[in-house]
């Protein structure tokens, strides 16, 4: 089943590469020390590559949002209130219990339903909540003169940074879970192959 058009695959791989660079350089900046450790990028290089990757990621994100607005792909991200809680619970129950008993997937992938309810919910949270906050706070740190100096007695820069690293951390956790759940396809490698070839292998 052809599920992932070229633009989605391109956006996805660019997003993944940039996000990994941003995690490594972000951690390097946050945990840099007077002695540069082997696995940590030096501070000056980390700042440079973090900034470059961040600008590219922002452009890539704008491309993603715009494409979803003008293409059919946007419909996969629309959450319906109808059965929202019960579907989410059903999917959670499948991942935590029923799949071990060999039961069938409660929401099999079709061209009309690319994401299961849990996927859809987490993707919407990641792409339409965490990502904008991450990008806005990142822009704030890149142009500190745009940040309000003090908010309730605390430095605006500190709060912006806390927001930025919190969103960065949440999205890193999302990425770890995302990579793991991608091993839950027909075979552990099926979904990885799918996002490269565009074809989804049904269970």
């Amino acid at each position, binding site marked *: 089943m052809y599920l992932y058009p070229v633009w989605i695959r391109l956006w996805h791989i660019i997003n993944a590469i940039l996000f990994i660079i941003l995690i490594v350089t972000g951690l390097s*900046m*946050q*945990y*840099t*020390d*007077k002695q*540069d450790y082997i696995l940590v990028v*030096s*501070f*000056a290089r980390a*700042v440079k590559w973090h900034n470059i990757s961040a600008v590219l990621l922002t452009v890539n994100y704008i491309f993603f949002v715009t494409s979803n607005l003008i293409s059919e792909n946007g419909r996969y991200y629309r959450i319906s209130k109808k059965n929202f809680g019960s579907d989410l619970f059903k999917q959670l129950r499948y*991942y935590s219990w029923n*799949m*071990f008993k060999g039961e069938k997937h409660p929401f099999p992938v079709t061209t009309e339903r690319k994401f299961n309810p849990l996927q859809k919910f987490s993707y919407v949270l990641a792409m339409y909540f965490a990502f904008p*906050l991450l990008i*806005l*706070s990142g*822009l*704030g*740190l890149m142009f*500190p*003169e*745009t*940040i*309000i*100096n*003090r*908010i*309730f*007695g*605390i*430095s*605006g*820069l*500190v*709060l*912006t*940074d*806390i*927001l930025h*690293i*919190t969103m960065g*951390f949440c999205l890193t*956790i999302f990425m*770890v*879970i995302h990579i*793991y759940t991608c091993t839950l396809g027909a075979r552990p490698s099926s979904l990885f192959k799918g996002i490269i070839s565009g074809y989804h292998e049904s269970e």
Partner: protein
Amino acid sequence: MKLPVFRLVLTAGLIALSFSAAAAGFRNQNGEKETQDTTSFTSPFYEDNERCFECHGQERYEYKNDNLGTQVKALMCENRRIGRDDFYSSNHKYFSCTDCHSSDYVTFPHPGQLRMEQMYTCIDCHGGDEKFAKFSFEEIETEYQKSTHFSLEKDGFTCWKCHNPHSYKISIRNTENLKETIVFDNTICLSCHSDFRRFQLLSDLEEINILEKHDWLPNQASHFGSVRCIECHTMQNDTILVAHLIRPKEESVKQCNECHSKNSLLMATLYKFQSREQRRDGFVNGIILNESYVIGANRNRYLNILSLVVFGIVILIIGIHIFFRTK
């Protein structure tokens, strides 16, 4: 152009995260709030000092030339002019002019040889005095004698080139606003290093363009507004609050992670006083309440632990899931 929409969105996001914090006031060793000035201060030597300020306190002064019998109006030379308000709000406001200057100055015209008067330096009054022990003037003098500035003493460099005795105010201990201290201290350096008229009085070097010299520094404006020149250009010293050992330019700090790291040198320099005071109040991260934010130095131990715990739980859940999948 500022981005009002961006600011609004950012503010809305930040408000959700923000919490009010009691701004820690900086207190002296007795736990009392220190206050700098004193608009109500009246000097016991006001009348005596006024005889000097009558001419030296203004741009234009008048005197009677007894030989010619005429009233003369003249402009006071810029570096002989002392602002009354500056003096009476300075740390030296309690003094009479003639405490430091020769009493022969009371005569006018001033005797010519007074121009050669030996000026006091800080250590002459403050050295060896228990009352000023906490300021470690002896250590400051030792540092100064090792600094590059000391090599200019033969050309006339003294404490007064940086610290004007007529307007000197102690800064870092007395302000809650670190930005004020940064501007105050950087103005001292820039008064010579960005004013070639003054600079060439002490050096034969060519004029320096500070901005060009520092063009390697990312976000230059942010750095200049957030740290003092002395953070990078002096040798750290744990025993005094403000380091005075100015290093040659080749030895200045150029590695980002000297400041942007867990053991940021700023904790031993710019943030030393504030962080020491805040630690007294039990505050764990001395930098967080400051005006500035330093990537790599603003680490919160609890957030670090929390992030590791959350990450560990996620990995554990994945491990358990793999176990049951493969069972």
